[in-house]
């Protein structure tokens, strides 16, 4: 079976934060404004808390099988054939997610910076780089994420400090003007921004955090950091833009960063979009990595090695990218992927937890 070097709590935090932060940072204020109006920040906050519950769920499930990863124990919980299908589904889901995020980011780049450069070329570069990173072991991947973490920090500071260019806190009021319904809708939309903590499904047995509890704390810290990031982004955008503008502008953050004008540097939006490749690719390679591991675990003794799986996934995704050219298609698929991810990240683990609970309870009775 695959051997994996263990990672420490700090590395887990980095990996999780980087996996959670994705293209949503750019679009969340816009999508949120469409649903929850000025209460976007509230929706994002609540869905962060919901993600925390999801983490608890996965942690609980993982702590029942502390020595094996998710793909290795599915078979034991639900039996061989269903376990096989489940791993296959997860493999496809993660490959699909990786493809979709790449498509979304490429789309942003195409619209903002590379008007003439062919889409497939940007796609290819991203795919090669992320595939290359995904071939590493979990520990080395944590190293990569740790080297990249400076970029989300820079991005965060840029966004947070753009507040000095005048924000109007009145834009946040009145709170809950249309009741809870739009906020709940916003929570659902924002939830997909937190997906990425499901890394724990695979990583659980390889984390040396000292104890089960410390592992949970590490995950919670990671999630809290993500919440802070997202909520700040939403607060800044809502206070700096009018509602009408937010609904038209899909990437308000980019507009905000255009505001910076220092003596020697301006148009920080370009820098931001470029730095963002580090953040986005960290999500993509984690997904490719998880997908390749899922495929490897299709057979108990291991099917192929993950190196070949990663490149196979990359090839397929690259081929699929030729069919994803229309923005509306990508957005529709993204909405579909949101539902899929709730299934994969919340529903299935919950089901597995229930089944394994019932089974062990049954065993105890007998």
């Amino acid at each position: 079976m695959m051997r994996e070097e263990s990672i420490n709590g700090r590395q887990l935090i980095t990996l999780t934060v980087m996996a959670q932060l994705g293209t949503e940072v750019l679009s969340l204020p816009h999508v949120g404004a469409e649903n929850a109006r000025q209460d976007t920040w509230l929706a994002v906050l609540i869905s962060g808390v919901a993600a925390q519950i999801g983490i608890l769920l996965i942690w609980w499930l993982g702590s029942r099988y502390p020595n094996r990863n998710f793909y290795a124990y599915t078979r034991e919980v639900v039996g061989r054939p269903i376990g096989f299908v489940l791993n296959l589904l997860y493999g496809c889901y993660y490959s699909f997610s990786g493809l979709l995020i790449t498509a979304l980011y490429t789309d942003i780049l195409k619209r903002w910076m590379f008007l003439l450069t062919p889409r497939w070329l940007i796609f290819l570069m991203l795919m090669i780089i992320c595939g290359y990173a995904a071939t590493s072991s979990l520990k080395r991947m944590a190293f990569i994420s740790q080297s990249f973490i400076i970029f989300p920090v820079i991005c965060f500071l840029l966004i947070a400090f753009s507040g000095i260019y005048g924000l109007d806190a009145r834009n946040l009021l009145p709170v809950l003007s249309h009741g809870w319904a739009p906020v709940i809708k916003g929570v659902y939309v924002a939830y997909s921004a937190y997906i990425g903590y499901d890394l724990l499904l695979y990583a659980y047995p390889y984390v040396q955090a000292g104890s089960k509890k410390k592992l949970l704390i590490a995950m919670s810290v990671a999630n809290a950091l993500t919440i802070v990031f997202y909520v700040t982004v939403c607060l800044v955008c809502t206070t700096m833009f009018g509602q009408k503008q937010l609904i038209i502008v899909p990437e308000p953050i980019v507009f905000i960063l255009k505001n910076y004008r220092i003596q020697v540097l301006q148009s920080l939006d370009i820098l931001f979009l470029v730095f963002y490749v580090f953040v986005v690719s960290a999500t993509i390679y984690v997904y490719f990595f998880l997908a390749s591991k899922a495929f490897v675990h299709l057979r108990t003794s291991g099917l192929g090695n993950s190196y070949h799986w990663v490149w196979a996934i990359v090839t397929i995704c690259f081929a699929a990218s030729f069919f994803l050219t229309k923005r509306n298609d990508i957005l529709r698929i993204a909405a579909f992927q949101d539902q899929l991810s709730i299934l994969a990240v919340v529903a299935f683990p919950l089901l597995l937890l229930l089944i394994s609970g019932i089974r062990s309870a049954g065993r105890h009775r007998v």
Partner: protein
Amino acid sequence: MNPSVAASEQFFYEQFSGQSDFQSKKLLIGGIEYRLFYLNTLIDSSHVQEFILKPLLSKPLNDVREVISILDYEETDHVEEAVQAVVCGKTVLHRDGESKLYLLGADLKKERTINIPSNERILRGANEAFIENLDTNLNLMRKLIPSTELVVKTYTIGRLSKTKVAVMYIKSVADPSLFEELDRRLLSIDSDYTESPGFIDELIRDKKFSLFPQLLITERPDRARAYLMEGKMVIATSGSPDAIILPVTFWSFFQSPDDYHISWLLGTFFRLLRLACFLLTIGLPAFYVSVSSFNPQLLPINFVNTLQSSLKYVTFPPLIETIAMMLLLEILREATIRLASPAGQTIGVVGGIVIGTVIVQSNLASNTMVIVAALTGLASFIIPSYEMSSAVRLLGYPAILLSSVFGLLGLAFFFMIIFIYLCQMSTMGQPYFSPPFSLSGIRDTLIRSPIWNLKKRPAGTSPYNQTRLRHPRSWKR
């Protein structure tokens, strides 16, 4: 073996047929026939006269062992071994009737004196450098660490060259498994000859194609000692004034012995400066290309106008301009190394006047490009390790190419590839590059933390004996 002198002489003549410097001296002392075999180019004749012939003449009948008082004294009963010894500069004595040969060390010692380091200049600290003689080098190391803990293990590598290679480590500090691994790798080398550090480096390194140096090469004994104390191993080779230190991480290439002789704040500043220069060397030309041909809006309009006006009449596109200037820089650098030192001044004139002024005036390259090229060159020379600084300069070219296609994004792509590559790399099973992410992680990497704070050795190379400093500054209590 045959006890007859004639037979052994016969054998030696067969082995050294056609060698004009081979000598077989016939001696008849006290009625006993002796033969002295040697290569007259290798021995010190006065030494032979003084310590071999003179004692023999005075006491011809005694046992040879009692008569000759040479420290390097061996006996053998294999003629082949004796032949080998002659090649190595020993004098072989055969007394008729005895079925053994005496191997006497009276070789001519030709070596230069210990000089000051020429490639790793520092301001403070020891000023001794290794030389080509392995024994002298080991002598230097032994004197720096007079302890039985310093283990020196020698190997002979090269079927023909018989190069002596010594591996040093500190018994109580180094990780024994690392030594075993190195031992395995060194023993696997089977070649005609070997040259250090190049051959050994490429034959034992982990990644075959890596551009990044994986072994640290130094000519300074004090530096070798510092790394030995961290649990690393040092390879010294006869015939080379360079010692190899391994396993080293990425960060070691940015440390300089100077750092530890100045205030730790200054040391930290210089270290950060070097790291910044690492990024600058890779990225600056590429950044110039991307700003001038993709994202001019990054600069405010007055700045852009200046840049634009300097480019206005330049015929080449920025990509070609940049690559040409970078190559020019490389040519200048290489020429400076190869040129005889009295003529070295010429380079300054050629480089400064021709490139700096005339190229700009003739509109072949822009003012800004000259600044960029000069800055890149300077930044790369700041990196203390020659190998690293050259590697980094070479990395600039793919960065330029990528940014000529994707602009700043290309540069970001390139940095991603480099960092992924670095993160995946290992040396001797240790991670080559691990991001400094904890307090203990940045202690001697990103910053040069105060000596009193460096209480622990790096865990990677010295997992068992971590403490290196006990009770620092305890006088204060």
